[in-house]
């Protein structure tokens, strides 16, 4: 029974992937991509990768989907012109060949993997007690491979700076995104009042539970960011001007704390990002608590877009 479900899921994902690639309409392709991400979430659940499933649903499908919908809306004006341009046959053949080669290379790489796949899971399980956290994913992300997580947090910040750099000169230092006006008694404003308390609890819960069960700061931060954006879109609050010093401090606080604790590890534990004995869990908690608000703010501001208006 489960086999049939898995085969059906795999078939649906492949079909949706092909459809997303061949869809001519940008918006339709984006919708296909979001549905594809949600199906991928089910695959991760089937593989017992609940942490990855949560991340895929929140970031891969939700946040990226929202970003792509925004991009599709901006491209709408030029879409018919872009669609009228048809690349010549040589270009299309070259593109098909390049894509085909990548697919074949990927297939060869996947088929060449040793079976059973090399795994560090036993070592992780053997050493997890040293970190004091219960969720092996969190142990890997914040103790054994903390460098990757640090770089991820910084990459997200860089992505936001990339979005900001699209601002026209007159709007530099101003507020991101358009000024949203919605009926203050309308349904959107209603949702923006009812949902955020629930979303706040769910987001913090997913963050909190990440120490011992699937969850964590990235997934939690995405939910918090979504709640804040809902309030912004309903016109109940406005985005902060990006010139604000307080905002900039809040944005870099998480990575700075992470780097500071990592640097302290050089003297106290002998390596960058190493934790002294017995202090691993409290330090991991400090890093997580410092990263959560910074990440939520950064992710929300990536979605809010480039500054478009003056600070007033």
């Amino acid at each position, binding site marked *: 029974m489960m086999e049939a479900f898995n085969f059906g899921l795999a078939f649906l994902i492949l079909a949706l992937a092909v459809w997303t690639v061949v869809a001519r309409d940008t918006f339709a392709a984006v919708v296909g991509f979001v549905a594809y991400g949600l199906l991928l979430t089910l695959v991760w659940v089937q593989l017992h990768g609940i942490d990855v499933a949560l991340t895929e649903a929140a970031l891969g499908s939700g946040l990226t989907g929202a970003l792509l919908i925004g991009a599709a809306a901006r491209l709408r004006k030029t879409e018919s012109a872009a669609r009228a341009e048809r690349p010549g046959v040589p270009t299309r053949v070259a593109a098909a060949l390049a894509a085909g080669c990548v697919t074949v290379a990927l297939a060869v790489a996947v088929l060449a993997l040793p079976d059973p796949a090399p795994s560090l899971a036993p070592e992780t399980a053997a050493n997890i007690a040293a970190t004091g956290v219960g969720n092996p994913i969190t142990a890997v992300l914040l103790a054994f491979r903390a460098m990757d997580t640090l770089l991820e947090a910084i990459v997200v910040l860089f992505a936001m700076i990339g979005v900001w750099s699209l601002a026209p000169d007159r709007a530099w230092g101003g507020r991101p995104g358009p000024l949203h006006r919605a009926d203050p008694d309308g349904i959107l404003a209603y*949702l923006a009042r009812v949902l955020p308390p629930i979303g706040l609890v769910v987001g913090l819960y997913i963050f909190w539970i990440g120490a011992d069960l699937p969850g964590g700061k990235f997934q939690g931060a995405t939910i918090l960011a979504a709640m804040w954006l809902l309030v912004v879109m309903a016109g109940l609050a406005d985005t902060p001007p990006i010139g604000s010093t307080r905002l900039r401090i809040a944005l870099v606080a998480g990575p700075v704390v992470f780097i500071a604790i990592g640097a302290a590890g050089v003297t106290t534990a002998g390596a960058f990002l190493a934790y002294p004995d017995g202090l691993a869990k409290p330090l991991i908690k400090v890093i997580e608590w410092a990263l959560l608000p910074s990440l939520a703010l950064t992710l929300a501001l990536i979605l809010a877009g480039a500054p478009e208006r003056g600070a007033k």
Partner: protein
Amino acid sequence: MSLADLFTIAAVSAGAVFFLAGTVGLLRFPDALTRLHALTKADNLGLGLVVLGFLPRVDSVLAGLKLVAIWLLALLAGAVVSQLIARAARRAEPPA
């Protein structure tokens, strides 16, 4: 097969019927408003019946409450989003 199993099968099957009907409606109905009408039936009744069917199978009261909360959140989101889409659709093509 216990009574709880029969109840689960009946409720989840009924939910699946609503999902199927909602999908058929989404594909077959002529305009945005009627398609939304079909879609919300799948979300509200379909998901509601599936959740109802799973309730006898949960291990704890908390897990059951979580299932019900998921349904209520889907109801809230469905109601709001369909209103917003309907408004956008009416604005796009005013009734003749």
